[in-house]
């Protein structure tokens, strides 16, 4: 199947006090229509910057123009004129963010905020937009939608605001929804509600979803295919079942072992030693090598390439792929 969105060799660099840092280092990914892709990584992994770059939302003054290509609808979005980019944002590709508190404008009503996208992309008039907003609030399961639609954000709880954000995002039936840590700031029981909602909406609207998170549990629940990022690079991609059953990259393996388990008692969690590298630090070779339990001499000097580790699987660790291939 032809991918809906294809990111090819994307590199994004930022200028900081301490010099240039590469936030995203030659990242490639593809999303098929209707697919749920999960991007998982910790801080400094570059997952959020990747997402923002797809919609060219990064802060202009501090970034050089990203290099690489982002193909959507047969065109490279990085070279699209601003006007066309605006048509895509919200219209065909939408995004929701982590913090519902600051993502809504406190001085506009819900109707205004949902309606903004409708008026912009579909040319609806005020009354039609308001009615559609009520329909959308019903769709995202906010009770008493007709009354809520005229309220201001401060009257809503975190979970409700996140639903409003989702309503705004899906208002124009986008083909792709990018969700950047949509449930991280929410309570566990509310998170479950929102994940259920996203899954149902995805099926009803046939949208593709890119879900970005640091939570492996959320990924396991939601994604069909997973991409693991570390320090700006993709280190592994795999179908979700494969990733959890047979992680290939030592980082994925270490991460899965290190996360606290809810269903078993573990005497001591096997922690990954060291810490995530400083983004401006220059590391030769594999960025995970300072912490890797199976590091070899070559790892410290040569940047490892992504190699195929099976059907739909890739890992940025040739030694390990070779080892696993030899065994199986």
């Amino acid at each position, binding site marked *: 199947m032809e991918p809906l969105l294809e990111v090819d060799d994307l590199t994004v660099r930022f*200028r900081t*006090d*301490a010099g240039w840092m590469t936030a995203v280092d030659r990242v490639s990914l593809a999303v098929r229509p209707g697919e749920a892709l999960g991007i998982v990584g910790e801080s400094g992994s570059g997952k959020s910057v990747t997402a923002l770059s797809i919609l060219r939302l990064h802060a202009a003054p*501090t970034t050089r123009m990203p290099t690489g290509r982002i193909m959507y609808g047969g065109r490279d979005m990085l070279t699209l004129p601003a006007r066309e980019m605006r048509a895509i944002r919200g219209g065909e590709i939408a995004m929701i963010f982590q913090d519902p508190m600051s993502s809504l404008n406190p001085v506009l009503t819900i109707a205004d905020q949902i309606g903004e996208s409708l008026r912009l992309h579909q040319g609806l008039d005020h009354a039609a937009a308001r009615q559609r907003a009520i329909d959308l609030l019903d769709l995202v399961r906010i009770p008493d939608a007709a009354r809520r639609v005229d309220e201001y954000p401060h009257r809503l709880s975190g979970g409700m605001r996140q639903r409003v954000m989702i309503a705004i995002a899906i208002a124009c039936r986008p083909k792709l929804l990018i969700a950047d840590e949509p449930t991280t700031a929410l309570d566990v029981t509310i998170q479950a509600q929102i994940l259920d909602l996203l899954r149902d909406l995805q099926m009803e609207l046939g949208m593709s979803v890119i879900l970005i998170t640091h939570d492996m549990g959320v990924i396991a629940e939601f994604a069909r295919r997973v991409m693991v990022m570390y320090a700006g690079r993709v280190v592994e991609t795999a179908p979700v079942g494969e990733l959890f059953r047979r992680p290939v990259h030592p980082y994925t393996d270490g991460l899965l072992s290190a996360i606290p388990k809810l269903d078993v008692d573990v005497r001591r969690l096997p922690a990954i030693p*060291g810490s995530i590298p400083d983004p401006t630090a220059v590391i030769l070779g594999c960025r995970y090598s300072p912490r890797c339990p199976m590091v070899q001499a070559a790892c410290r000097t040569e940047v490892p390439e992504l190699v195929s580790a099976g059907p739909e699987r890739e890992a940025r660790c040739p030694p390990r792929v070779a080892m696993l291939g030899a065994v199986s």
Partner: protein
Amino acid sequence: MAEATATILASGEAIAARRRFRVLRKLLHHRSFMVGFIIILLMVTAALCAPLTGVDPNRMAIRFRFRPPQENWWFGTDQFGRDLFTRTLYGAQLSLWIGLSVAVLTGVLGAAIGVLSAQFRRLDSLLMRIMDALMAAPAILLAIGLGAALGPQTHSVIIALVVAYIPRTARIVRASALVTRELEFIEAARVAGASSLRIMFKHLLPNASGPLLVQSTFVFAYAILAEAALSFLGIGPPPPAPSWGNIIAEGRQFAVQSWWIMLFPGFAISLAALGMNLLGDGLRDVLDPRLKVEG
């Protein structure tokens, strides 16, 4: 463990080295700051070099009065034949000294009031109402009133200006302290049994030093301008001691025919205020943590 140790130290060191002189480097690259800094530096140097002229600023020479700027008298002479160049230089000493005293005293007292208000809510209401009352009148009018009441002395000018400018400084320190108070390290100190005094001076105050410093540079500039105004009205340092304001005040009657008497000290005042403002702007740009994005 050794390798981990080395890694921690190395990464920390690298970060530290980049950040240790970061502020200094940024200041040196900030154009406004450097211009202001050089202006102030030159003025202070000039003031300190006043004795080098070898001329007594108060020596009258009636024969040479009202001379326009020329070879022997770079800024001309006033109605008593005194060399205005020398008087301006000595005036710099007094005016800059007043500016510095006011800035320092306002800083110290304003900071004390600011942290006390932030730490003790009940005291806060009282102190802030007093500050509001002081701010109700324009600072200059307040200073004039106080100065007139205290009599024409250098120290009365300083006191009057300090009282007039304390409220703004206090508010700024208070605002910073209120934010700092909500941070967890304050709670950590309280868990360990820290007294309010310790919290105020070891925690709140040091974290307010940035805004305080910036505000003090502005107070310095205001003070120099205000001193001129007060002297103009006869409430400044008593003659014959030269201050910029004094010289202008004395030269007022002769403004038309002997324009140079008022010009040079006036120019000096403007330059000093400008320099301090540029310095303060630069400091604020560099120290303000929110303005982190650079092109």
